[in-house]
């Protein structure tokens, strides 16, 4: 089918970008309306449903040398910024320097992700070299980050914060307007380097907080798509209202709610108690029932199911809490609790974050599950903005935690579980050198099969033997969109694939 040129893509965005600076922000509210104005060095293949395949963007090609310690990128020529100037290696270097080596007193949100980078060089207009301190299996993946817009070096030199309030990129669309509290409009960049693209004349991102109104917008055919995701109920409603005018794309979502268990509080310092907590959960049943009302679905380990490093279901079901026989599982949970001296009807507080979807249904579900092994759990819901402050202080017994990535990559996904002294975002407050060692080992392992094995060991230790953290269900991304929208593929991350250069509208 031939791509059609023209048309304006209209999509609601559930939140508004705080600023325009991708290097600084950490929200899809920036990606959805702003990413189309920019390019990144590399990108994820827009047709890869797994959302992991590197794909050229500003960099035409790249090669690895020096035993994985040097990466050389060939920068595309003929790329122009919207102001007409050329985009060269200098701009790439300047952008990444801003991210990785910010001047003192200048903050960088993602500095920590690139700790392995030693320095960046731009020997000529079309070459950029990244030198690493040691080889890293995930380095290329980290360059796929949709946030790392390439900015203009001259502008950054003058004012490193200029991009917070201004937009000037090289992307397929140019910025038209942003009406606060209403919308952002972009129009086709006629001089886009990727000839023939974009197909759209423009796009209009409309900020709509209420999910009901987002659904209504799609239903009323006033918007084509919402890129974050709808609930199963919304999907069904849309489908039944609009029939085949609606196309549904679904994917496992690289986000998961976890339960952090405070190892510093009794009786949760006892791994039997923690195991009982995970054993009590009937994940398979929940996968079936909760997926009807919430944006969760697959039973998952530390990797998004269906991705290269994920544990196959048969293996996964051997872990505590993943057994298919829930009665056996619950009996074991009761036994463990009894053994640990936890009385029947033991009461504790579960802290949850005040966000309805999917925190609330999962909270309700878990409390109910725990009740069935004789635990009396009170839920305390904390206002979202205050939440992580509270949890980080360790002021809780068990609490909902959250992990979300822009790309499925074991290094990124498992970093969360490293000992508390290595990672402050480990709210469970445990130290487990064995686990840390496994992490490091898999990270340095370049053989895929071997790496998988190590990851399995890591998973078993984390979720079963020690039960440091509990996994709930993997999120499930559901994008019911107008059937007119073509050239867009769902990926496990709602941060990815939003440049819109490949998207076109059918008549």
């Amino acid at each position, binding site marked *: 089918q031939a791509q059609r040129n023209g048309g304006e893509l209209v999509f609601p965005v559930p939140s508004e970008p705080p600023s325009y600076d991708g290097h600084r922000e*950490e929200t899809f509210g920036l990606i959805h309306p702003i990413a189309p104005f920019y390019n990144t060095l590399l990108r994820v293949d827009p047709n890869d449903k797994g959302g992991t395949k590197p794909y050229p963007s500003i960099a035409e090609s790249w090669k690895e040398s020096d035993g994985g310690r040097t990466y050389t990128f060939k920068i595309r020529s003929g790329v122009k910024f919207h102001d007409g100037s050329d985009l060269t290696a200098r701009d790439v270097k300047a952008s990444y320097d801003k991210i990785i080596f910010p001047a003192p007193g200048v903050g960088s949100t993602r500095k920590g992700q690139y700790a392995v980078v030693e320095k960046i060089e731009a020997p000529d207009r079309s070459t950029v070299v990244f030198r690493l301190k040691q080889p890293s299996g995930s380095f290329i993946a980290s360059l796929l980050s949709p946030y790392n817009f390439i900015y203009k070096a001259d502008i950054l030199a003058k004012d490193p914060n200029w991009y917070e309030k201004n937009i000037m990129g090289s992307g397929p669309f140019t910025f038209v307007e942003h009406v606060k509290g209403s919308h952002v409009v972009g129009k086709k960049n006629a001089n886009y380097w990727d000839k023939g693209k974009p197909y759209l004349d423009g796009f209009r991102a409309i900020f709509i*907080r209420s999910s009901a109104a987002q659904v209504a*917008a799609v239903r009323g055919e*006033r918007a084509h798509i919402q890129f974050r995701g709808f609930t199963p109920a919304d999907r069904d409603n849309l489908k039944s209202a609009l029939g085949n005018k609606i196309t549904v794309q679904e994917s496992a979502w690289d986000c998961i709610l976890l339960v952090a268990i405070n190892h510093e509080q009794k009786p949760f310092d006892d791994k039997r108690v923690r195991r009982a907590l995970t054993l009590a959960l009937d994940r398979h049943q929940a996968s079936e029932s909760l997926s009807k009302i919430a944006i969760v679905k697959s039973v998952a380990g530390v990797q998004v199911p269906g991705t290269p490093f994920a544990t196959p279901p048969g293996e996964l079901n051997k872990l505590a809490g993943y057994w298919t026989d829930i009665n056996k599982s619950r009996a074991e949970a009761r036994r463990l609790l009894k053994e640990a001296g936890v009385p029947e009807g033991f009461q504790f507080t579960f802290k949850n974050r005040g966000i309805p979807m999917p925190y609330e249904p999962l909270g309700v579900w878990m409390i109910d599950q725990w009740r069935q092994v004789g635990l009396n759990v009170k839920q305390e819901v904390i206002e979202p*903005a205050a939440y*992580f402050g509270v949890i980080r202080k360790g002021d809780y017994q068990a609490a909902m935690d959250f992990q979300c990535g822009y790309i499925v990559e074991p290094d990124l996904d498992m970093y969360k579980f490293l000992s508390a002294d290595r990672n402050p975002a480990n709210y469970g407050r445990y130290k487990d050198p064995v686990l840390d060692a496994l992490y490091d080992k898999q990270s340095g392992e370049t053989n895929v099969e071997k790496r998988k094995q190590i990851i399995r060991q890591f998973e078993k230790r984390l979720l079963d033997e020690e039960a440091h953290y509990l996994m709930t269900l993997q999120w499930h991304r559901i994008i019911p969109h107008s059937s007119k929208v073509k050239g867009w593929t769902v990926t496990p991350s709602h941060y990815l694939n939003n440049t819109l250069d490949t998207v076109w509208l059918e008549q």
Partner: protein
Amino acid sequence: MLHYIIKRLLLMIPTLFGVAVLIFLLLRVVPGDVVEARYMSQGSQFTSQDLMNIERKKLGLDQPLWKQFTSWMGGVLRLDFGLSMWTGSPITEEIKLRFALSLQLAVMATVVATLLAIPLGILAAVKQDTWIDYAVRVFSIAGLAMPSFWLGILMILVMLIVFKWLPPMVFTPFWVDPWENLAQLIWPALAVGYRYSAVATRMMRSAMLEVLREDYIRTARAKGLWLKLILTRHAMKNAMLPVLTVIGLEFAFLMGGLVVTEQVFNLNGLGMLFVEAISQRDYTLTQALVLIVAAVFIFVNFATDIAYAWLDPRIRYR
């Protein structure tokens, strides 16, 4: 009279100052700040304490409280509300469109409420203790009793199923397309106006009942005036006074308090902005909003008092 106005205007200052102090302190007591809200709410693993400190410094949050307060107050005195901590852009810019929407909705709801309340209130009072009175009272109390979000949900459902109507996505200001604009706001205005008319109808009824028992109404009847004339000329003006107060108070409430209605009807008004600002711990924006809404409240109160004085010569005399 002038003296009275000046006095009332001056009395607004300590109240507004109190509001400013209260919101300022309240926000600092609430756990979490804008930096935490921004960097920790996405669950990022890589946010360093370092980064947060740099960001706090940028926003002046590292300053002692009194310094933050005085510099904020200094700006406010120059009518400069500063920059939003969340977006970094001027607060006036953030608020502009939403203020217009909230104001318009408040005005429309007030019109709806007044048009309902005055005739119904008079009718119920004149027909006191008949089925008409009961019907009016039940109608108005039902308005009070129905949570506006529920009413909104029901309204939208009915509209959706019966008329295939959906709430529009963006607010079209009146000056851009009046027709579209009215079509958009009329439903929330009805939903809110109905609830709001309930208070006003009851007030109108009881004020009217009271006035109808006044001696001067008996005098008017003894003069041989028609009932219509007695109601419109003698009773209504007197009964309007307390109703005016209620309408004023409600109007002020509508300016910042329609969070739920805005959510249901997908309106980007001040109410939602409020919730957003506070959940983002956008101190400056929240402070500005509170101050603006409080100022509207106080000003409307003041305006009703002036209108009161204008309607009631006894007060005007002061």
